[in-house]
Every structure is written in C-alpha cells, then in structure tokens.
C-alpha cells in the first residue's frame, strides 16, 4: 500500500475550522494501538460528562458558562435543591438546581422536542430573548383586553414582577441546551399568564407540577416536593384541585416551549389555550381570598361571641 497519508497521519479533512471544533478534537482524540488518531464519538451524553479536574478547568464554551466536574454538579444539585426547599424565594438556587439536574437526558429531550417542531426550530434559530425592552410593555398594554400580550402585562402588573429578573444559564455545557433552559426560564411568566396562577408559593407549586408534566425537567418535579412545606388548606387544595389539573393538562397539552410568545402577543388568549390544549384552573387568588374572608368572618364571629359571653 502506497498511501499519500500513512495511517499515522492526521487526515486533512479532520483539520478543524473553528476554535470550538479544535477544542473538541483536542479533548477527544486519542492514539490507538495502530497509531492512527481515532476520535471517540462525540455524542450528547459524552460531551456533558467530559472529565477534568478542578485544577485544569477547561475554558467556558459560551459567555457565562462554568464547566463543572461531575462531583461539583452532584453537590450543586443537592445543595441548591435542599436550600431552595427551605427558602423558596431564592430564585438563584432554584435556577442552579434546575441546571444541575437537567443533564443527562432531560434538557436534550426538551431541545429535541423543540427541534421536532417547526416553531420550536424557528425559536432555536432566532434565539429571541424575552426582556421588558424586547417586549415593549407599553405596546402590550395597548392590545385588546383578551389578547395574550394584554393578559401577560395585566399579570405582570397584578403580581408586581418584571421579565428582567431572569438569571443567565451557567452550568449547562451545551450552548444550545443552555439557550433552551434560558427560554424555558423566560417562558415561565407566560405559563403564569396562560394559566392565571399567581406567584405565591401555592401557585408556583401548581405551575411547577404543570411544567413537570409538560417539560419533564427534573427540577420542576423536585420543586413539587415543597407541597409538603405548605399549609394544610393549601396542601388539600393541591391534591384535590391543582395537582390533578396540572398532570392532566401538562400531559395532554402540546409542548408549551414551542410557543413563539413574541409572535402570539395579539392572539386571543383563549384561542391560544385551546390550540395548546390547556384549560384554565379555578382562580387561585379568588379561592384564597374567599377562604381568607371566610376565616376572617369566622374569627370575627368567634370574637363577637366571645365578647358576648
């Protein structure tokens, strides 16, 4: 055999054109017994479990990325998970827990769900970011009352929240999956306005249950554990009303991640719900208010009776 490129030579076609490809070749090329440089397959699972020690942490794969070792990832998931159960207002911990738990498999599944859908693909291609400036809130306020945009703004106003409080993704290695996580995070508020669930703990847990049934992200299922930290009344409501609603709707609805919210602002929210297959749950704020009033009334009556005695 007279070959221009003896077996030990690097094949010309393997010369990487981008620094990213170079990095991959460097980490995955290993010599074999016959001297040929044979690259091991770079599939999703292998890429997420690249092995390195804390002493030679590789450079970030995208701005803001922090590569973690396996041990770091596990401890991050456990630590942030336990702490966020104790203090559900720590959005940063919930975010970190969500990222650490999303690999292997789950975030790839969500990305593949997007890649299988024409709109999901368009979102991945355009990579829109949801911020108060990109959405132009004044414009949304001018939309008809039943439109998604108006419902969303009303919800923002009612809950006193802003779309700018979302943290960037840091711990997911694949940059496209990082975007998927980012998109999920930014869509969360739209899930709220689509379902009408409030940002109080009870509403968040119900929505997380819905998200778990819909996106399968482990963090959302993990968050449902906080149902055990809720008050008795709330827990009862979760098991009787919101839990079953969440599972039924989450499973039956389309993948809600594939909604291009920016393009649906003028859409009638009921039409959108119908298209996605989501039914609105009973208004949680109403129920809570009614119960609160009831309690207050009972308390007042008790006090009155006590005074009477």
């Amino acid at each position, binding site marked *: *055999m*007279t070959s221009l*490129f003896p077996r030990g030579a690097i*094949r010309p076609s393997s010369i990487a054109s981008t620094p*990213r490809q170079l990095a991959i070749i460097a980490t995955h090329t290993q010599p074999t017994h016959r001297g040929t440089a044979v690259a091991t397959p770079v599939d999703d699972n292998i890429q997420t479990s690249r092995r390195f020690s804390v002493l030679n942490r590789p450079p970030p794969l995208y701005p803001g990325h922090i590569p973690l070792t396996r041990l770091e990832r596990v401890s991050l998931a456990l630590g942030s998970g336990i702490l966020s159960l104790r203090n559900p207002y720590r959005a940063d911990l919930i975010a970190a827990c969500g990222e650490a738990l999303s690999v292997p498999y789950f975030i790839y599944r969500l990305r593949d769900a997007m890649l299988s859908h024409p709109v999901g693909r368009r979102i991945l291609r355009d990579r829109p970011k949801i911020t108060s400036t990109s959405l132009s809130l004044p414009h949304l306020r001018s939309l008809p009352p039943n439109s998604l945009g108006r419902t969303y703004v009303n919800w923002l106003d009612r809950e006193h929240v802003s779309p700018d409080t979302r943290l960037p993704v840091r711990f997911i290695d694949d940059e*496209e999956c990082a975007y998927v996580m980012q998109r999920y995070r930014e869509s969360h508020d739209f899930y709220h306005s689509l379902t009408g669930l409030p940002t109080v703990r009870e509403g968040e847990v119900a929505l997380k249950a819905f998200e778990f049934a819909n996106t399968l992200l482990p963090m959302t299922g993990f968050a449902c554990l906080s149902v055990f930290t809720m008050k008795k009344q709330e827990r009862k409501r979760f098991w009787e009303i919101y839990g079953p609603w969440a599972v039924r709707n989450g499973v039956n609805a389309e993948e809600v991640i594939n909604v291009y919210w920016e393009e649906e602002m003028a859409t009638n929210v009921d039409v959108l719900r119908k298209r996605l297959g989501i039914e609105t749950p009973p208004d949680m704020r109403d129920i809570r208010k009614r119960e609160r009033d009831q309690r207050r009334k009972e308390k007042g009556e008790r006090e009155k009776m006590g005074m009477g005695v």
Partner: protein
Amino acid sequence: MRPLVSLRTPLLCHSCSRLVWRSVKGQRGYATTTTTTTASEREIYDVVCVGGGPAGLSLLTALRSNPTTSSLRIALVEAQDLSKVASWSLPQDQFSNRCSSLTPSSARFLNTIGAWSHMERSRIQAYQEMQVWDGVSGSRISFDGPSTSQDGVIAYMIENLNLQRGLLKRLSELRDGVNIFDTARVSSISHGSVLSSGHDLTSWPVVTLSSGTSLTARLLVGADGANSPVRTFADIPSRGWDYGRHGVVATLQLSDEGWGGADFKTAYQRFLPTGPIAMLPLPGPFASLVWSTIPSNAALLKSLSPVDFTSMVNAAFRLSTVDLKYMHTLSSGQTSEYSWRMEHNPHDPFPVPPPVTGVQEGTVASFPLRLRHADTYISPRVVLIGDAAHTVHPLAGQGLNAGQGDVQSLASTIEYAVSHGMDIGSMLALEKYNAERYFENHAVLGVCDKLHKLYSVGSGPVVGLRSLGLKAVSALRPVKDFLMKQASGNGFKLF
C-alpha cells in the same frame, strides 16, 4: 437469435450428442408419425440460462472457461439488449448508479475464469477501511483490510454494467461462445414431449420465447432475478418478507478523494432508525450512495432539488435523528436547515465521509428492499442462482457476492458431474450445489436481517445494549477479524 460466436458443432456434451445426433440422423429410434422439425430438435441444449445479469454471465463464463465443461451446449436468454451492455461506456467522471461491492474472494473467482482482466480497471475502486456507526448512540466500529489479503483490500466497488461487459467480452473471447437470445422475453416454460426419434424429453424443461423459438434444456438455470419465472415453473416456493424500506441509490460528487487519497479509501455506513445509509468509494472524488429508508422518505429524496438532496446526504451522516426526521418533512430548504444545524452540531470531522458537493444528474433512483429465500435451489433439471434463489438486505453488500458464491459452487458441481459421466440435470448431480450453498446463504440472509432489525430501534435499552455489543466487538480483535474474514468471503466454512 444472435450468436456471438458461430457454433462449431451444435451438440457437444457426449451423452447429449449421442442422443440427438442419432435421432437427427435417424439411425435409431422408433419411426413415429409426427414430423417434428429438425430445427426445433436442434434447439436442445445442455444448459439454458435465463437471465444475463452478473450471476448468469459469470456461470456461463465459468462453464466455458473450464476445459471439462467447455463443450457443453449453452444458451442464454436475456430480456435486455446485451449488445448495448457490451458497448456500454461512460466518461471517466460519470458512474452508473447500480454498483456492487465485490469481495476479494469474488474477485479472485472472476480472475480464475479469466474475466477480471476484461473489466475496466480504472472504473473499479478498492477500499481498505470501513467505518460503521450507530446513528442514535454514536458508538462506532472501524474495520481495516483483512490480514489475509496482502494489499489490505476489503472489497472492490464496481459498476454492474462494467462487470457484465467484462464477462461478455470474456465470453466472446472463448472458443465456442454461447447462443445468446437477447431482447427475448420468456413467454412460457413447459416440459418437453416425446420426440419423433422416440426420445422422451417429458422431464426436460422447454423455454418458449416470445419470438416463438423453443429451447429445450437438460439443465435450466434460473438466474432471472427476484421474480424468477424459472422458479415459478419449478414450483419452488420463495419465502420471506418485505422490509417496508426502499434503497435510494445515487452517484455522488465529493469535495475530495478522502483523507487517504486515491490509494486508501474508506466506505462509510451509518445506521439510522429508518435504515442504514452507506457511501461507497468510486474512483476519483466520487462515491456511490445506498440509503435504505422508509418509502415516504425515499419519495421525498427523489423529489428534492440536487442541492437539497446533497444537503440531505451530508446531514444523514452528521446530524441527529431528530433533525433528520424534521428535514424529511420539508419539501425544500434542507440546505439552509443543514448549514444552521451544523453550527450547533459539534460532530467529529474525522470519521464522516468527505462532504458531498453534488449528485450526478439522473442517478437518483430507488428500489424496494426484501428478504426472500427459495425453499430449495434445485428441482429436477432446474437450478436457481443469484437473486432468483435469494434476495438480501443490501446493508452488508453481500447480494452480488452470494450470487458469485452460487456460481462458483454450481460450476464446480457441473464440472464434477460432467467429468463423472453424470446427467447434469439430475438431482443426484445437483444435490451438492444445494448442500454447499443453502445454509451459507441462509446465514448471510439471517445476519443481515437481524442487523436491520437491531438497528431499526430508535431509542430505549436496545440502543444501549447494541452500543455495548459494538464496543465489545470493536475491542476484541479476534472477533473483529473473524467477522471481517467472513464478510470478505475468506472465512471458515461455517456450514
């Protein structure tokens, strides 16, 4: 009828010539009232081969080139115009889309019968490496040439037409040639009658052509493909199933010859859940594509513009199955999808084929994939070879080679029968061929079938297990070598 070479004497086999000459000369036999014409009696052959494909032509060449069997009187019936095959030629930068991979042992056989030197060698491409990987998990196995062949060749890619033309050239070179009835359709096959001479030909098959010519055969060879009329005549059932897949073929233009240049070429095959896609090297920056896929995908691929088709082929070797599934739903625009996905797909540039830059016009075609195996290859005075006997999934490139194995075995069976004075049409003589080939082909069919089924699974534990299995085979050098030898036809005789 168009004899390639004039016949020296019409009847050559000893027993045959005794029988018929006497009857023609009227030296022996009963005086009967029938006035059978001499002409129809003259159309008695030792071997009538229906089908002038690679298997049929190789058999005739093998018989003619062997001194023991060269005196048999042989006829070939073929529906195509063989003079077109004999004069076939294409420029050096164009290739037919019907290519086959010839293992070194098939090539050696063709060399033994003197046909190899008549092939246009500049259109044959040897390859020395094979990269096979799982499209779902990415686990991979690479084969290099078996240690048995000194130049490390795994197989040769050859256009079927080049092979047929080479065989025809070799046949015409041989002293006696064969009676070729081409552009002839078989209108019926029946049994013969009692001749005026009193000879009982009722067990002899008679092939009647649409032109009215009747050919009586001592041994009728069915090399007439998957829907074999000969097999139907012999009433041999053929069992199997359709895969519900189509093989899409095309001749591809590549960006370069590959990393090894002209002297070291690689064949690539990726198993996708819809079926394997294979790119097999041709001389220069060209390759032959065989893409097994579901019929709707095949229809879409055939309808795509050349640019989008090219992108789909590139995508099929590089992108995830999710992307491929989506791209199969688009009627156009695959190119832009492909270039976008490649930005986010950190694949290895190493073990995938060179990028495809174009597809040769008019070469995209498809055919249905099936598994068929005849219950037996022989019946009195009838024998089946090649696709008439067995049809295999193309994933291991074994179809043509199984046919060559049949030819080799049948030629030696006939040689044995002739040299021992046996009737070559008798079951006693043919039994050896069936015994040699049936189980060997059955094993090849079975292995290809199981591989197809194993890799049709798109997700779940099967993917993990098969990836583990592939890694194990890849790591166990002796197992890998064994498989390699079996696939190249140099292995142990298992059956």
